[in-house]
């Protein structure tokens, strides 16, 4: 299980591939990989957004993410998990978060990746401040519920 908070733009697909290649013990053992990638959009709440700053609480963020992944490991059969989250200045179309879960069973991979993502959204101390194209800045006030779909 690896949790990384990164300042610079990252390539989620290279991260996953590199992690998988380095974890030799799981070669041939995992049948299912469920991945979620959150990417910065150029709009939000009806406004055009040209940038974002992501603040976090160093130490607590890692601690909460470790708790979340540990809880997922208790509930589902997970071989490995990788969580990468950006902080600092972010531009539209750049990845913000990556959650990848490897399992022998696809149901567990799906459930665990979604659980980690929803728990991260509600528990991990990150805060987004948006910079609009109008040059106004505003804090995002709350995250949406990821279980509610149309």
């Amino acid at each position, binding site marked *: 299980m690896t949790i990384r908070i990164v300042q610079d733009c990252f390539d989620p697909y290279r991260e996953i591939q590199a992690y998988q290649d380095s974890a030799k013990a799981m070669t041939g053992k995992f049948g299912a990989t469920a991945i979620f990638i*959150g990417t910065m959009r150029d709009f939000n709440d009806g406004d055009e957004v040209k940038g974002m700053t*992501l*603040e*976090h*609480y160093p*130490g*607590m963020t890692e*601690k*909460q993410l470790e708790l979340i992944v540990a809880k997922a490991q208790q509930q589902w059969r997970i071989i490995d998990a990788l969580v990468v*989250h950006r902080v600092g200045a972010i531009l539209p179309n750049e990845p*913000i*978060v990556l959650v990848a879960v490897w399992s022998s069973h696809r149901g567990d991979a799906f459930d665990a990746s979604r659980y980690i*993502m929803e728990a*991260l*959204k*509600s*528990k*991990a*101390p*990150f*805060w*987004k*401040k948006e910079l609009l194209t109008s040059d106004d800045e505003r*804090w*995002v*006030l*709350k*995250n949406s519920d990821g279980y509610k779909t149309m």
Partner: protein
Amino acid sequence: MIMTIKVRYFAGLKEQVGRPEDELVFTGLSTVREVWCAVNTDKPLPGNILAAVNMEYVELDSIVQDGDEVAFFPPVTGG
């Protein structure tokens, strides 16, 4: 008994409070809510605020200990 508590603020709340942290010294038992009141005498605790002690979420009426780091922040918006 003299207790020293570090208080931290994040995101929009840090801007409202106007500083990133406070240091508080007081005697006797105290709750997280009382910590807020002691260092923000002019501001009531906002309704939707979250609190952590030593980087773990706590209720506002939980008791703080000497050396604790108490943090206050708005709902989180990562991911």
